């Protein structure tokens, strides 16, 4: 290609630049997806209650007879194994949702910074005269960008990820829901063992000779009652949140192909809002 120093009009690159910038501008459509995925991935309440389940034996231990202690230790070993499985499930769900949030990210396909710099770079040339091959290269690059990394392309990638992930995601969420329920019921038996033991022994310690013992026992009974009440509240909230996440993901599946529509925006925003409310409640569980 022969080099020539024709002053080349910068109209063509500018037109392409404008088209490209316009394509980069509208990432707002994915905002609802991004927020919903990010909130969901927190799995608020789930990990805490899994840890609580794992540590059941430590809490029960002071209240168990030697025979009871031996039985519980066998359960403890299996619980720790189960906890590892439980964590692994939560991690794959969280990773999927986090990655979805990044893929739907605001800055993700926004190349306007880069395109601006290209534009400044090109503008520095007019004084010296542009070589046509350089302009061609620049135009080709801009065209490539416009073709390859556009907002619609990003949206299609997000839609594909939502569709493909929905079935395994819902199955894993269903399993996590069942697990939380078993943890909740285990907690109920734990509470009955601890408070039950105190109740039985306090009844026989409630004599003048054992006044101090009875008082100590009752104080412990009081604080344990509060502790278990808090735990029960938290289990309910965690279960509710998991249900919200499952519903929110179903809404996402339903609306991801029509993100600009009013029902889509309403449904997805409402789902994110509910998840945020759930998370706030979990920080301060109350009746």
């Amino acid at each position, binding site marked *: 290609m022969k080099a020539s120093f024709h002053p080349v009009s910068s109209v063509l690159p500018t037109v392409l630049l404008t088209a490209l910038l316009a394509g980069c501008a509208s990432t707002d459509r994915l905002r609802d997806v991004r927020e919903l995925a990010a909130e969901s991935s927190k799995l608020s309440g789930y990990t805490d209650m899994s840890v609580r389940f794992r540590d059941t034996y430590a809490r029960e231990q002071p209240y168990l*007879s030697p*025979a*009871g202690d031996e039985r*519980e230790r066998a359960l403890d070993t*299996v619980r720790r*194994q*189960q906890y590892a*499985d*439980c964590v692994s499930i939560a991690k*794959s*769900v969280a*990773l*999927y949702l*986090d*990655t*979805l949030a*990044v*893929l739907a990210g605001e800055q993700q*396909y926004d*190349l306007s910074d*880069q*395109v601006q710099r*290209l534009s*400044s*770079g*090109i503008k*520095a*040339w007019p*004084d*010296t005269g542009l070589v046509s091959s350089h302009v061609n290269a*620049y135009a080709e*690059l801009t065209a490539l*960008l416009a073709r390859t990394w556009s907002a619609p392309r990003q949206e299609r*990638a997000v839609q594909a*990820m939502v569709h*493909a*992930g929905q*079935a*395994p*995601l819902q*199955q*894993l969420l269903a*399993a996590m829901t*069942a*697990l939380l329920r*078993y*943890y909740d*019921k*285990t907690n*109920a*038996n*734990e509470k*009955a*063992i601890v408070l*039950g*033991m105190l109740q*039985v022994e306090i*009844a*026989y310690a*409630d004599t003048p000779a054992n006044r101090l013992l009875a008082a100590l026992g009752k104080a412990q009974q009081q604080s344990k009652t509060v502790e278990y009440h808090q735990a029960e509240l938290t289990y309910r909230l965690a279960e509710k949140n998991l249900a919200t996440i499952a519903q929110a993901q179903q809404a996402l599946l339903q609306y991801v192909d029509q993100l600009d529509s009013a029902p889509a925006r309403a449904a997805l925003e409402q789902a994110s809002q509910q998840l945020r409310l759930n998370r706030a409640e979990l920080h301060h569980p109350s009746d």
Partner: protein
Amino acid sequence: MTDHSTPATADDLEALADSLSACADELHARLMRAIRQTLPTAPAAPLHPAGNPAGPAPTAGIDQGISQGAAQALFENEVALRQRANGLYLDAAMLAAGGLGGMQHQLLDLSAQARETIRKVDRLKDLIGITSELLALGAAIAAGKPEHIATPYTQLKSLLDDLHRQSSGQPPTA
């Protein structure tokens, strides 16, 4: 030929555990009633027909109850029941969490694919960045304007450093 030995499902195990827990609740209620009949400090409770297999049945009208030793033995039975129930909940949990490897793999694969897409976009951003800096640098050199070289040169160097850091797994500085 019917298979009579179908393995229990998680739901079966949960239902059984629920019954055991309910049984334990009932045992506890009876135990506490029996204890309250013994002890004057405890509030009076209505008499119930005997049905306690492991201890002396409280009979109406007589201020008999159970000794601490008997109460402890009965409570120990209750604890054993609850521990059995918890063991079943644990079995149900193992069942529910088992066989999910396939689902997890699907999600992990999708996440890996998406991360690859994200990485390619990042690389492209870097490529464009380098191209624009090269253009600016070239323009400054061609124009013979040394004062315009410093900025694109610095930015270019920084971009290349970041790229190098990324490919060796460290986070970029900017």
